[in-house]
């Protein structure tokens, strides 16, 4: 490796996390630790009905008996669940502000810094945003417009109050509380998140979006998102995340459930940029996320797109259960790890119905001393006649101290189903670099161009609003080398 490449690598690792600021705002937190009292406290704070509390306590009792899943290729110290705040809210949020003018200006400022100008978005047509600050949903823009179409887009806390029938029917129907220990934990202590319901035949005219931010120290964020697309409807949903720089590790264990009924389509895009820790591997978010979609009806479609650049640890497998005949599941992922980051991410496609199709494109890029693992399962059950899967996972290694791993599980129980899987691992092609340099690009620009080209297949799946941000993010992740 030449010295220039080494310099480039150096500058990668020195790159600063620009969302690492802390907003000084009065916070309301109960004591640390996890027990029934804290769950009752959360439930009380959220003014929840009795059945919700019972649901939480049931999940908690399951969690107590469970151990963390161990399959992932990750190394981290044991999580002390008693050393975490399970609830944190900016003061004065007992009642949700009716209007942006009631929100603390400091908060608005924070979001402006992060590039989500709430005020502006009120005016500009486009994205409707729900913002979750620590544990509390701060504001949902564009609610009125959406209501006209019958679309429900609000925080999950609000939905529990206003649409208990939908919550009772669907919450936990895709990810049961007892699925594994992180889903049980989330079910017990989830504080907020988004709820979306698209009524029959409605195509949601704008991208719905949620922005998550962990601000307080030693808090865990446990959000819960539930999206239901009724017959023939369509929705595209975006999610973004950031957190301040802290020396301690913070826990983030979210659950996201998607349900697509007959002919419905859900597109879910994530740009995850939690604080990844510093160059020594100190601090950073532990991101243990369960995302699962159910294609319940015929001809339904769920598509996951993710760009994972942050978090000290990423443990995330957005999955699709293809139950309806002719349903389609898609998964597009770019995961970039740097310094001491560890990512173990991938997907799970379970084909149950006839003629179901799935497609997996995964691109992993490892730099510094990071470890990047793709772990995916594709299974065809007995009745999945004529099911089809195509999987492609490519890894790119930059530097000789990182690792790239691929662990696919392929299981076929049907003799008309066809599965194809291919994977490759390589470093940045010297010939390509040489070619770019020859055309007058600097080394940094050349690396950027090649990496962007490597991810293009995935990035082009993102909605416009996000594609720009994601490309920027890829650039930032490689900053120093990339213009």
């Amino acid at each position: 490796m030449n010295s220039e490449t080494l310099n480039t690598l150096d500058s990668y690792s020195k790159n600063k996390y620009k969302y690492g600021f802390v907003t000084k705002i009065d916070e309301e937190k109960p004591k640390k630790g996890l027990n029934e009292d804290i769950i009752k406290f959360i439930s009380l704070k959220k003014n929840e009905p009795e059945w919700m509390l019972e649901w939480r306590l049931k999940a908690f009792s399951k969690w107590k008996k469970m151990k963390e899943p161990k399959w992932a290729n990750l190394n981290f110290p044991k999580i002390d669940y008693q050393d975490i705040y399970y609830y944190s809210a900016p003061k004065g949020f007992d009642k949700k502000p009716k209007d942006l003018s009631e929100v603390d200006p400091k908060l608005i400022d924070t979001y402006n810094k992060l590039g989500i100008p709430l005020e502006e978005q009120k005016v500009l047509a486009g994205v409707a945003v729900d913002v979750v600050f620590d544990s509390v949903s701060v504001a949902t823009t564009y609610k009125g417009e959406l209501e006209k179409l019958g679309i429900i887009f609000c925080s999950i806390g609000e939905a529990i109050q206003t649409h208990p029938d939908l919550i009772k029917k669907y919450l936990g129907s895709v990810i049961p509380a007892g699925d594994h220990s992180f889903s049980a934990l989330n079910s017990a202590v989830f504080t907020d998140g988004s709820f979306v319901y698209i009524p029959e035949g409605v195509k949601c005219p704008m991208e719905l979006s949620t922005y998550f931010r962990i601000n307080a120290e030693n808090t865990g964020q446990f959000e819960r998102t539930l999206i239901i697309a009724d017959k023939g409807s369509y929705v595209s949903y975006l999610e973004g995340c950031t957190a301040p720089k802290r020396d301690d590790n913070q826990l983030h264990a979210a659950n996201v459930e998607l349900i697509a009924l007959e002919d419905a389509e859900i597109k879910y895009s994530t740009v995850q940029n939690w604080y990844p820790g510093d160059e020594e591997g100190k601090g950073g978010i532990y991101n243990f996320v369960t995302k699962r979609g159910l294609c319940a009806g015929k001809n339904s479609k769920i598509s996951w797109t993710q760009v994972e650049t942050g978090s000290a640890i990423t443990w995330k497998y957005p999955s699709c259960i293809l139950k309806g005949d002719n349903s389609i599941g898609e998964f597009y992922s770019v995961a970039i790890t740097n310094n001491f980051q560890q990512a173990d991410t991938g997907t799970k496609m379970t084909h149950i119905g006839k003629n179901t199709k799935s497609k997996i494109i995964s691109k992993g890029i490892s730099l510094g001393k990071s470890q990047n693992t793709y772990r995916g399962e594709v299974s065809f059950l007995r009745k999945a006649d004529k099911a089809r899967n195509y999987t492609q996972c490519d890894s790119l290694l930059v530097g000789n101290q990182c690792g790239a791993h691929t662990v696919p599980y392929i299981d076929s129980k049907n003799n008309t189903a066809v599965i194809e899987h291919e994977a490759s691992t390589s470093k940045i092609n010297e010939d390509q670099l040489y070619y770019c340099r020859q055309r007058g690009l600097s080394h940094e620009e050349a690396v950027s161009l090649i990496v962007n080209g490597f991810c293009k297949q995935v990035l082009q799946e993102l909605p416009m609003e996000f594609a720009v941000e994601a490309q920027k993010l890829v650039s930032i992740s490689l900053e120093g080398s990339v213009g």
Partner: protein
Amino acid sequence: MNIQDNYQKNRKNIFFSENKDIATHREKLINIFENDRFDKKNNESLKNINLKNFIDFKYKYLIPEETSVINNNHENSYSIVSVNGQCSTFKDDKIEITKIIDEDYNDFSKNNTIEKNDHFVNLNSLFLNSGFKIVIKRNYNIKIKISNIVTDDDLTIFQKNNIICQEGSSLSLIEEYENKNNSTSNILNVIKLEKNSQLNHFLIQDNSSNHNLIITSHSSCKKDSTYTQKVYNFSEGYVRNFHYSELIETNSEADLQGIFFLKDNNTSNNKTFVKHLAEDCKSNQVYKGILNDRAKATYFSNTHVDQVAQKTEGYQLSKGILLSDNASYFSKPELKIYADDVKCSHGSTIGPIDENAIFYLRSRGMSKIAATKILISSFINEELSSIDNEQMSEIIQKKLVRYLSKVK
């Protein structure tokens, strides 16, 4: 009967039970059995297995009356008959065959490429009752054929073989497993290739439905050596093929290939694992399977590239054809890469026979069955035509025809 009692009761018949070091090692293994919860989900060695049959077994071993014969047919060509895993000693200037000794056991127990929770390997170490050691002397080019025979019903054979190819030697080894009795063979081959040596290893497995065969091999390759392994599994009984290879010095090569033909209720578990520990090494793992009726198969492949192993080339390919509604195939092609200047890839496909190809053949006047048979043969043709040993290729063709005759 639990493992502990079973072991204590049969201690007398088990190799090296007088050796203290080995006894303590075995105590540890017993502990593993007693504390393990046999987690089928995460332990690859347990998938698709009826544990009770294998863990809760009746130990029985007979020392063969007639010791096996070694024929020196032609020059450099030997044929060995191993009876109940034992083989008489033999020595000339080219090869040397002896019983295994304590040191061979200790040598292997220190190796950590094979997982500690592979219960079949642990069982083998615990109940070891047979095995031999073959040394190929420097610079000789040798052919050996080993027929593995089990004499009686209900035998449990736990066999450990050592094969050592000294510097510059070349060995073509054909092993046959064709047993019709109701017994279980658990065999562990430890293979060492010294500098610039070569081993072509063929395993033909064709047991009847009540014979269980569990084969594990561990090969380590030094500088410029090449290990090629080809497994042909036509067995009607349970077969487990787990093969590990370590490339410990530069420019060595490992090529692990296998084809399995399954039908009825048969199960086969397969695994290949290549560990690249030095620069400039190559590896190839190719397994193909044809599954009919209610057959089940698993295939785990794994390429591990160490940080120092730059310029590695590692390829994996797994292909499965399901001929029936009730057959199932599980594959897990894994890559673990810690070096950056590598070329590694894997491909995996599972599916039925291509309908378009069938249509083409039928439009040329062929019956559906004939078309299916032709397409199955062509699926594995590449592997079969690459066999450079005529005798071998004939044997395999015959077995293939037998398998195809049952395809409907």
